[in-house]
């Protein structure tokens, strides 16, 4: 049977031969290293040296070697000093080309030689068989294969020669490629590695491999924890030196390459007891738990069958607020618990109530709330558990999203009384819901905005006592936001309060409250036409989030970034953002509402009005049923913009709805911040007949503010269809030159046209782009991607 030549490897060998450069093959077992070398040098006199247990099996006198090529097989087993020195001497002997074969990487002891002599490296990718290679291999084995199957085999085997061999064996007699064949080849490979290689590896290595194989990635600490081996760094080094199995995942994490991972899982199933496997899962769960990775911890507690671990983690999760906790992600785990386990734990009952509220199932949330109430009233439950139930009820009374703010002050009064008696301690609270707003945060506090200063005077101390660190900065930020939205507070006061709130939150409060401050500040800067200032604050806060590892804020920070980008017109950022946020009709949790709102804006800006409308309709239902007045006003404004863009008369109904609601609170900025997008709507509304229940003063104020914002950002949420712009060839040329900053004289000169001729082309360009002047034409052309700045071709 002849060897199937692999061109890439042979080209490198040829180059190495020209300059007598040493060659090193770094590839796992089964890639055909030895076959490639034997075939290539078949007509040359070669001396083959073998390595075992750290040494060469023989070390002939170098001066007596007549061969021009010395092949070193299994160099991964070389580690003794004398043999290493012998190899180094060999490498530096003129007239001898050394070809080294190893399953590991270039050994550290040859680093200097590698640098000095310039090793030619032949890697696994140079030895893989492509589709033609697979066909030749099959032909050589007298096995027929169709072109289509050759492609499948090449892809499934990734060109790994030993795998291709097993495919040839299994497809003998004209058997077509199938999933069953693929699984069969996988088993063949496992058995081969098991019998030919496994026992050659150090026991410490195989123990390590079997201990970590079930996990996506691991670091040294995790591997030590799972194996109990404190010298695992030596094992990892051994693995790097002698084999090609580890993948460096970065940040000191590793994983096993996919095929080996599967092999070790198979080996584990066949050699470990069920108890040993579960113990491994339990250790991993505990490791993740200690590291604060609740999702992974829960997954592996579940796999370990450790219901106690699952339950304890779910209870701990129920102590975190929805912004940090994993209610929705853990839903299946909550529901998997036996009912008697759930009903015996106030924390878990409360967790379920919160979960259902978050996923828009208020009725189910109420059912669990009532279970908790029944638990608290049931005297056969212990005093401690009933006390815990009281705490949980108080927490749900404040925190359940579907309850809104109805009766919240009475609730806070009860809580304060219970706290005074030492009867309760609340779990973690979040007033912000991870969004950059406090009035529209965890709950909608727009009703308090009507008399914000007076309420703040009475509520600041109680809020401080009840919310503790979670409320630091809350009151001053709430006043700032209320004043901003109503346009009743000057810029200086808004920003000063934001600064005070940020400092209070940063010093002993929470980063979530800092985000609120950032949200208000950016909006204040935006209405003043200062998007660069807004972006600076935003970028600075992004850095703070990274430093404090506040990963739970990242999705909404990215949403804010997408929103800020819209003021320059729709671009890549808006497009990417719209792609990354899922459709809320498919996957919804109220903690993502801020992202969904920005997605609607991005879709409007991208001209995808129907998609925007579908999502807006869905969200409107949630906003109505959960008393989210601010979001409701926002969504009605956006719907009016969408319908206006679509040329549908429904725009009027939605803007009137928004205005009627907004005027209850005097929320001017909720509408005017939509600037250039809402201005045409307002202009047309004012031109027609106004219903009597819209206050003229309020409408006028909104209108004037909208004009101001629109003047700063004329391209906000505006979409111009690129396909509708048909420029002539000459117009395209002129437009490119305009965008490149060329003067009129230069353009006329280059294109050899008169000034009048240029004016005519300009008029055509402006008309087609809907622009009034050169600057606007340039801006629109760039926005639409018609030209790149500086293009003069």
């Amino acid at each position: 049977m002849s060897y199937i030549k692999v061109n890439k490897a042979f080209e490198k060998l040829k180059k190495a031969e020209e300059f007598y450069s040493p060659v090193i093959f770094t590839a796992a077992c089964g890639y055909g290293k030895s076959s490639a070398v034997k075939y290539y040098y078949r007509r040359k006199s070669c001396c083959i040296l073998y390595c075992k247990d750290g040494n060469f099996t023989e070390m002939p006198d170098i001066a007596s070697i007549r061969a021009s090529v010395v092949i070193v097989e299994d160099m991964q087993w070389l580690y003794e000093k004398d043999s290493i020195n012998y190899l180094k001497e060999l490498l530096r002997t003129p007239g001898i080309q050394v070809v080294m074969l190893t399953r590991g990487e270039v050994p550290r002891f040859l680093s200097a030689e590698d640098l000095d002599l310039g090793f030619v490296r032949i890697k696994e990718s140079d030895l893989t068989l492509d589709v033609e290679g697979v066909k030749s291999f099959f032909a050589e084995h007298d096995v027929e294969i169709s072109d289509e199957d050759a492609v499948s085999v090449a892809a499934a085997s990734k060109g790994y020669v030993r795998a291709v061999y097993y495919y040839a064996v299994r497809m003998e007699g004209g058997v077509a490629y199938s999933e069953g064949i693929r699984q069969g080849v996988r088993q063949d490979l496992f058995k081969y590695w098991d019998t030919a290689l496994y026992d050659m590896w150090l026991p410490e290595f195989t123990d390590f491999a079997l201990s970590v194989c079930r996990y996506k990635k691991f670091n040294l600490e995790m591997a030590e924890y799972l194996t109990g081996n404190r010298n695992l760094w030596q094992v990892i080094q051994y693995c790097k030196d002698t084999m090609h199995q580890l993948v460096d995942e970065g940040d000191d994490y590793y994983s096993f390459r996919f095929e080996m991972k599967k092999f070790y899982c198979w080996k584990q199933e066949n050699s470990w007891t069920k108890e040993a496997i579960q113990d491994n899962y339990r250790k991993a769960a505990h490791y993740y738990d200690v590291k604060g990775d609740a999702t992974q911890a829960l997954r592996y507690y579940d796999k370990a069958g450790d219901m106690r671990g699952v339950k304890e983690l779910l209870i701990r999760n129920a102590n975190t607020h929805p912004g940090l906790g994993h209610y929705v992600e853990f839903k299946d785990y909550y529901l998997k618990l036996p009912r008697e386990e759930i009903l015996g734990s106030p924390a878990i009952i409360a967790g379920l109530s919160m979960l259902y509220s978050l996923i828009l199932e208020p009725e189910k949330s109420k059912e669990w709330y009532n279970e908790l109430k029944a638990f608290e009233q049931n005297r056969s439950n212990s005093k401690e558990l009933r006390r815990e139930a009281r705490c949980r009820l108080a927490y749900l009374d404040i925190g359940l999203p579907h309850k809104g703010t109805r009766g919240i002050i009475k609730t806070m009064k009860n809580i304060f009384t219970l706290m005074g008696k030492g009867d309760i301690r609340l779990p973690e609270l979040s007033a912000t819901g991870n969004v950059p707003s406090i009035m529209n945060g965890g709950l909608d506090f727009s009703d308090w905005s009507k008399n914000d200063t007076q309420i703040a005077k009475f509520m600041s101390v109680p809020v401080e006592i009840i919310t503790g660190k979670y409320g630091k900065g809350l009151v001053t930020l709430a006043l700032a936001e209320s004043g901003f939205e109503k346009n009743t507070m000057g810029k200086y006061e808004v920003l000063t309060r934001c600064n005070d709130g940020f400092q209070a939150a940063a010093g002993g409060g929470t980063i979530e409250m800092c985000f609120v401050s950032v949200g208000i500040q950016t909006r204040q800067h935006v209405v003043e036409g200062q998007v660069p200032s807004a972006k600076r604050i935003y970028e600075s806060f992004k850095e703070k989030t990274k430093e404090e590892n506040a990963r739970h804020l990242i999705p909404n920070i990215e949403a804010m970034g997408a929103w800020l980008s819209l003021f320059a017109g729709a671009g890549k950022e808006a497009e990417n953002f719209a792609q990354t946020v899922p459709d809320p009709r498919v996957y919804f949790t109220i903690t993502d509402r801020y992202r969904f709102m920005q997605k609607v804006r991005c879709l409007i800006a991208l001209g995808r009005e129907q998609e925007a409308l579908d999502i807006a309709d869905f969200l409107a239902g949630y906003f109505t049923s959960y008393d989210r007045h601010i979001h409701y006003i926002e969504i009605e404004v956006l719907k009016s913009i969408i319908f206006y863009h679509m040329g549908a008369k429904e725009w009027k109904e939605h803007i009137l709805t928004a205005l009627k609601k907004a005027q209850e609170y005097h929320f001017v900025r909720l509408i005017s911040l939509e600037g250039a997008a809402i201005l045409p709507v307002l202009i047309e509304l004012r031109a027609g007949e106004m219903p009597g229940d819209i206050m003229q003063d309020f409408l006028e104020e909104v209108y004037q503010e909208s004009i101001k914002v629109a003047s700063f950002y004329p391209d906000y949420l505006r979409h111009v269809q690129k396909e509708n712009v048909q420029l002539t060839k000459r117009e395209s040329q002129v437009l490119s030159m305009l965008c490149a900053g060329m003067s009129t004289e230069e353009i006329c000169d280059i294109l050899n046209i008169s000034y009048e001729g240029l004016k005519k082309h300009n008029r055509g360009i402006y008309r087609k782009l809907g622009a009034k002047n050169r600057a606007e034409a340039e801006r629109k052309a760039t926005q639409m991607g018609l030209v790149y700045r500086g293009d003069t071709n």
Partner: protein
Amino acid sequence: MKFRSEVKIKRGTNLRLICKQKEATVDEEDYYIVELIEEGITADDELIARVGRKYNEDEVSAKLRLAQFVEDYSDFLAEGEKSGVFG
């Protein structure tokens, strides 16, 4: 804390607040606060102290009671005055 200048207080079988198109029936437990405001007790500290004494409540509970009053009858109350600079 005080009522808006245009608010009228009507007494009959119950106590009602009327302001332009809006009207609200006052809860019995809030009568005392309405009376205090009618008497001219509008300073917040004084209101807190009096309410606390009347209902035998500490300062925080009294503040919460007054906050509830503001929430319930916000349409009839004047905007609060800021105390000092950004108070």
